[in-house]
Structures are given as structure tokens and as C-alpha cells.
């Protein structure tokens, strides 16, 4: 199948045949294996945070931010799990990357991992949609091992999924990581996709000298017993040493779509609105026009998601409900109209969703 044909199907929310998935994944591996752990790109570019299988919201992003290849995109990882459409989401990104390799860049997030996807939905979704015997999950998780870890924009903006690592002082140390593997629990590669900034109220510390000795400004271990949080001091040191200006990362839900830390040295970008179809949070994409000109384009949930809520509540990743929905969409034809033509305000739809609403005789 031609790439453009695949794209047409994927934009409609249809699944590709398993053989095609296999071929595409193999092709992408060939492409990614040649990339360095750290990719260098130039503005203008739009930075996108966690998607988590919220396919309709990703289509919304392409509406708001502009379609590929007219807009350049950098995705910060966490494409799969939790949402109902991980397969559709990751396959659309895979094909876009193959079709426009210089227009779209995909970093690895902590959910791009075999272990995590078994617990958080992608594994279950694959076997629901392709059948228990299918190998789609293996094909896709295999390409995860090839995704790059970091990206540097205009030589001075550092982008990563999670954050910094005590094992990484220089960018060169990232370049020598052997990334073609499952994400380990431990070490630089794990920290880059897992760690979180921790901002402590510094007004009580007072003098700058004391500030640097305050342990909360350094790397600290999470009370969970694994994983780091990093303070302001660590960030300043890293940026200075590598002549970088600031850091963009994703990984943590923020209710307003983005969250600024340490006066803008670190910013979280979050791109999954109404996360898990119930949080009611906003999402954003970060449009970088040049080094110092940027705009957080904040948006809310795509209307299509609202329809799915009721079905979602009664049966998580219920394959038949999803197919039913897309069957409706497919009958209406072309890409653009297929989604807008499902009349979510129609009585028929409302009756259907209201009748699937349940009161539960729990005990």
C-alpha cells in the first residue's frame, strides 16, 4: 500500500491491515536506526506533549496547528496507553514520519515501552482490535526501541520527554547511550524519560549562597523509592554547561495545558485535553516561530470525545463500540467530513448514548 493511501485511511480513523503495519514498522526502523540519540532541528516548529491515544484530539491539533507537512512538528512522546485509540494514533504518526521524515520528529516517552504498555492499555487495545493472535503490539513496540531520546532546537532549546539525569552532564553523554533497547529502570536513559522538576518555595532560603546548598535544588529521590526529581540548581548547571537557553518537556498532566517552572527555564507541554476522558483539563501545543518568539496555543477536547464518554465508562477499550462508531463515520465518505458529519447532536445519537448510560446496582 502506498503511504498516501495509508494516510487517507488513518485520517479517517480506520485500521491498517496487519501486514501493512508490519511493513511500515520495518521501514520506520530502517529510517530511525540512522538517527542520532539527539536530533538537531530549526524553528519554526510546533512542540506537542503527551497524546495518550486521544486520536480525535490529535486530529484537532493538526487543525489548530496546521496540517503536516505545512507545519513542522516535534512530538515529545507518550503516544499510546490510556486513551481508546492508541493504535490509530501511533500508526498515523508512524506513516507521517515515513512520508515526511524532515517535517515531523518523534521522541520516546516512558510509555513507549513493552512493560508499561502491558499495564496501561495499548496491549489490550491491540488484541481487542486485531485479535489475540496478532503481532501488531510486537511490531509497534519494536519501533519504540528506535525512537530518539532528545531534540535540540536552534542549538539552544533542549527538548526531552521527562527531564534531566544525574548521569548526564553534557549532551555528548546522551549521544553515547545505547538507546536501541527496552527502557531500563535505571540509568541515564530511564531518567531522561521519567524524571520530574520539583520547585520548592525558595522565599525562606534567602541568600543565594544558601540556595545552592539547599538539597531541594539538587537531584532527589522520589519517596516511591526510584526515580529523580530535579531542582533549579541542576537545571541552571546543565543549561550553562551545554550553552542552552531552556528546556521543554512533557510527562506531567497540567490543568492549563502547560506549566512553567524555575521562571521559564523548564516548561511542561501537555497535549491531551480532558485527559482519560474525565479530567476536564485544557491542553496546549507550543508554537515556536523563532528562538525567542513562541505561543502556547491552548485548546480543549475535540467534540468527538464527548460522545465516547458514556461508552467508555461502561467498557474500557471496548472494540465493538469503537468499530461501531467508526463504521458510522466511514459511511459518510471523505476525511474532513467523516468526523464532522457524525451528528452528535442528533436524537439518534443521544438516544444511543443515553441508553448506554447505566445506573448500577452496586453493593
Amino acid at each position, binding site marked *: 500500500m502506498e503511504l498516501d493511501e495509508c494516510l487517507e485511511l488513518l485520517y479517517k480513523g480506520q485500521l491498517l491491515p496487519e501486514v501493512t503495519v508490519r511493513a511500515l514498522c520495518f521501514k520506520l526502523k530502517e529510517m530511525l536506526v540512522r538517527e542520532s540519540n539527539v536530533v538537531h532541528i530549526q524553528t*519554526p516548529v510546533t512542540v506537542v506533549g503527551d497524546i495518550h491515544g486521544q486520536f480525535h484530539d490529535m486530529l484537532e491539533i493538526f487543525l*489548530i*496547528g*496546521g496540517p503536516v507537512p*505545512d*507545519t513542522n512538528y516535534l512530538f515529545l512522546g507518550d503516544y499510546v496507553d490510556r486513551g481508546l485509540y492508541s493504535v490509530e494514533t501511533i500508526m498515523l504518526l508512524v506513516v507521517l514520519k515515513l512520508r515526511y521524515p524532515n517535517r515531523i520528529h518523534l521522541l520516546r516517552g*516512558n510509555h513507549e515501552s513493552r512493560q*508499561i504498555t*502491558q*499495564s*496501561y492499555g495499548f*496491549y*489490550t487495545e491491540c*488484541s481487542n482490535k486485531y485479535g489475540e493472535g496478532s503481532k501488531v503490539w510486537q511490531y509497534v513496540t519494536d519501533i519504540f526501541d528506535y525512537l530518539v531520546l532528545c531534540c535540540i532546537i536552534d542549538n539552544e532549546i533542549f527538548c526531552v520527554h521527562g527531564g534531566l539525569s*544525574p*548521569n548526564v552532564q553534557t549532551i555528548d553523554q546522551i549521544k553515547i547511550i545505547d538507546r536501541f533497547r527496552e527502557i531500563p*529502570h*535505571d*540509568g541515564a536513559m530511564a531518567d531522561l524519560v*521519567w524524571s*520530574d522538576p*520539583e520547585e520548592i*518555595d525558595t522565599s525562606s532560603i534567602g541568600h543565594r549562597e544558601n540556595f545552592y546548598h539547599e*538539597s*531541594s535544588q*539538587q*537531584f*532527589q*529521590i*522520589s*519517596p*516511591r*523509592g*526510584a*526515580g529523580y*526529581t530535579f531542582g533549579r540548581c541542576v537545571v541552571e548547571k546543565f543549561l550553562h554547561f551545554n550553552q542552552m537557553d531552556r528546556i521543554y518537556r512533557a510527562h506531567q*498532566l*497540567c*490543568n492549563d495545558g502547560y506549566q512553567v517552572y524555575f521562571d521559564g527555564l523548564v516548561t511542561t507541554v501537555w497535549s491531551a485535553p480532558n485527559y482519560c476522558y*474525565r*479530567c*476536564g*483539563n485544557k491542553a496546549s501545543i507550543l508554537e515556536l516561530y523563532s528562538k525567542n518568539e513562541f505561543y502556547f*496555543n491552548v485548546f480543549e477536547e475535540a*467534540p468527538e470525545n464527548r460522545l465516547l464518554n458514556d461508552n467508555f465508562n461502561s467498557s*474500557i477499550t471496548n472494540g465493538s463500540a469503537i468499530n461501531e462508531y467508526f463504521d458510522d463515520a466511514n459511511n459518510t465518505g471523505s476525511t474532513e467530513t467523516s468526523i464532522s458529519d457524525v451528528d452528535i*447532536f442528533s*436524537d439518534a445519537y*443521544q*438516544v444511543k*448514548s*443515553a*441508553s*448506554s448510560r*447505566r*445506573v*448500577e*446496582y*452496586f*453493593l
Partner: protein
Amino acid sequence: MAEKRDIRRGPGIRTVEINAARQVHARTVRARIPIDIGAIDSQEPATSTAISAPRFVQPALPQSSRQPSAAHSHVRHTCNNPRNPPCAHCGTMIVPSPVATLPLEDHPSLTINNWTISTKKKPILNSQELEDWENNKLKGLTLPEMIFGNSFVRIQEKTRNWSIEFNALDALREVKLKDSGIRVSYSKKWMDSKQQKQRQQQRLSIALGSSQPLSDIDDSALQIARHYDWTYTTKYKGTETSGSKKYKFKKDDSQTLPIDKLARPDHILFYDDMILFEDELADNGISIFNIKIRVMNERLLLLSRFFLRVDDVLIRVVDTRIVVEFDENKVIREYKEMEGDYKTLLTKHKMSHSHDPKAALRDSNWVAANIPLITRECEILNLNDPN
């Protein structure tokens, strides 16, 4: 790049959206009007949206609940929210109905005799609210990822001014600000490798005659940031308020819930469920606190459940059930803690389901039925005769 920003979603709302929201609201309300199969057409519900309701059968209700008249002959509940559609059985049934706002907001309420039940659902806290909770209300706690801090379930007894409410803030106040003792499965390995690396580096720097540490892994890096119970385990049983001291729960573990009566498919007049807080434990499992309530003509049942799964380590469920008998003005509260080893539970489940073995561990009902009970307490409050 030039014309790409014409679809910008600014602070304003487009007229089309408002209209769409109105329509979806009207239709949601209409779709929620319950239809009595026997009485279709005979009773046209008198809503402001004067179009006849779509016909459908609520599939969740067992047939036996559809016996008309007898059970409804003495109707005594009233709906407190004018937006709730009237009942086809008696003209006053309530099913939670949204207010036409963006985003939709539910604040339904129902009164039976002297008892009023109300719920409210709002989105997660915004960053100002979060800051306030973090710095003032819950100082010292790293907050869970998702807090539905403006949602609540409330049960009030009007004549004696007694009430019990469930909300996220009070639930989180019960989370301990000290080490839970629980670590993620790979913690030991992780810590050991840190210490090993640290020793190596110390040896190396001594060998090189350098006084500077070679990396950021110094002593402070091996400290746990601050101690709080990162599993967010809460023993919260609801927030009581009372006009008089005599209305207090009395402990009596011999009491049991009237399971036989609750198991009857009595018609549900009011149903709601909501999450109060949730955290994914940095993908090491889940910690979630949710509430369900159903109100029947004679009694109500509320279940508040804290569910914790730390992958490869343990599973914990803390259930509080409240039953109110409206005629006797009696409240029973049952509290249960359950906890089990992750692997034992996984093996138990694997025996019946080979495919996708972890699915059941996401299902709190299955888990609660299959892990050992640690504690059970029961309390009773008789408002007619508090002593």
C-alpha cells in the same frame, strides 16, 4: 505558515459552539427522561423543552423494577433542581441532569422526607487552586495528579441538622505525611546500583587526587526528597457535621448492612458516581478514590472506595459503605480494609484467564472480592433515638 492561525481558540466562544452546547444540553435532558413502558404517551413530561421524549428502554434496569403503581403509590421524594426532568412514574423522579454551561456541570439534588441528597461534579483543580492546596490547605503533601476538589456527595438530615459529606480535601487530609514504607518493585535494585556507582566514583576521585566529585551523585542525591505517603492511602469515612453532640456514630461491629434489601432491584430514583482524586503513581500502578451513590424509595447506599495497586508489590482496597433507612432515620456505616500481595492475586486470576492476565487487576470489584480482609468496623447512628 502564514495563514495557519485562523482557527485559533481564543478566550471567546464562537456562536456556533454556544448553539451547539444549548442543543446538546436540551437533548441530554430529554434523553434522560425516563420512560415507563406501560405509560408511554399517556404522560407527556412537562419539560420546557417541549418536544416529545425519544423512546428507549433503559437496559440497565432489571424487568422486576418495572412494576408500576404499588411501589409508587406513596410518592414522597421531591426534586430540588428545576432542571431535572420529571419522572414518568410519578412526575418527580430524578436522574442527574446537567446545567447548560461550558463545560457541562451537574448539580442534582433529591429530597425524600427529611433527607436531602445532593452531588456536584466539577473538573480537576486549576493551577491557582492547586497552589493554594499545596501551600496552605495540604502543606507538606505532594498532591496527586488529578484532584476533583470541587466535587462532592452530601447526605443531609434537615430536621436534626445532621449531614455527612465526601470530598477530596478532607480525604487527602487523612493521607499521612510520613514514610509509607512501601517502595516500587524495582526500588532496591535501583538504590543498590546508585550506591555502587557512588562508591566507584569516590574511589576514582580519590585515585585521581581530586577533591571535586565527578558527578552530581553526591550524598544529597541519595536522599528521599520528602516523606509523605505517596500511595495516598486514606482512611477517610466522610465528613460529619451535626448541630448537636448527641448525633454521633456508635461503634457496634455486630451490626451488618441489610444486604438482602440492598440486593433487591428496587427502583433507583437517583444515581451518581464520581472520582475525588486519582494518581497513576508515575506509572507504577494506580491510586484512586471514588464514590458511588444510589437512592431508592426506602433507603440509600453509598460506597466510597479507595483502590491502590502498586505493580508487582501490593493491592489495597478501603471501602466505606453507608446505608440510610429513611423510615427509621437510621444510618449504618461499615468500614473495611483489604490488602493482598500482588503476585498471589495475579496467580489467582491467571488460573481462570490466561489471556491479558493483568486486566482483572485493574478491576476494583474483582480485586475487592478476592483479597484478604484486614479490618472491619461498623457504626450505627439512630437519629430518632440517639441514645
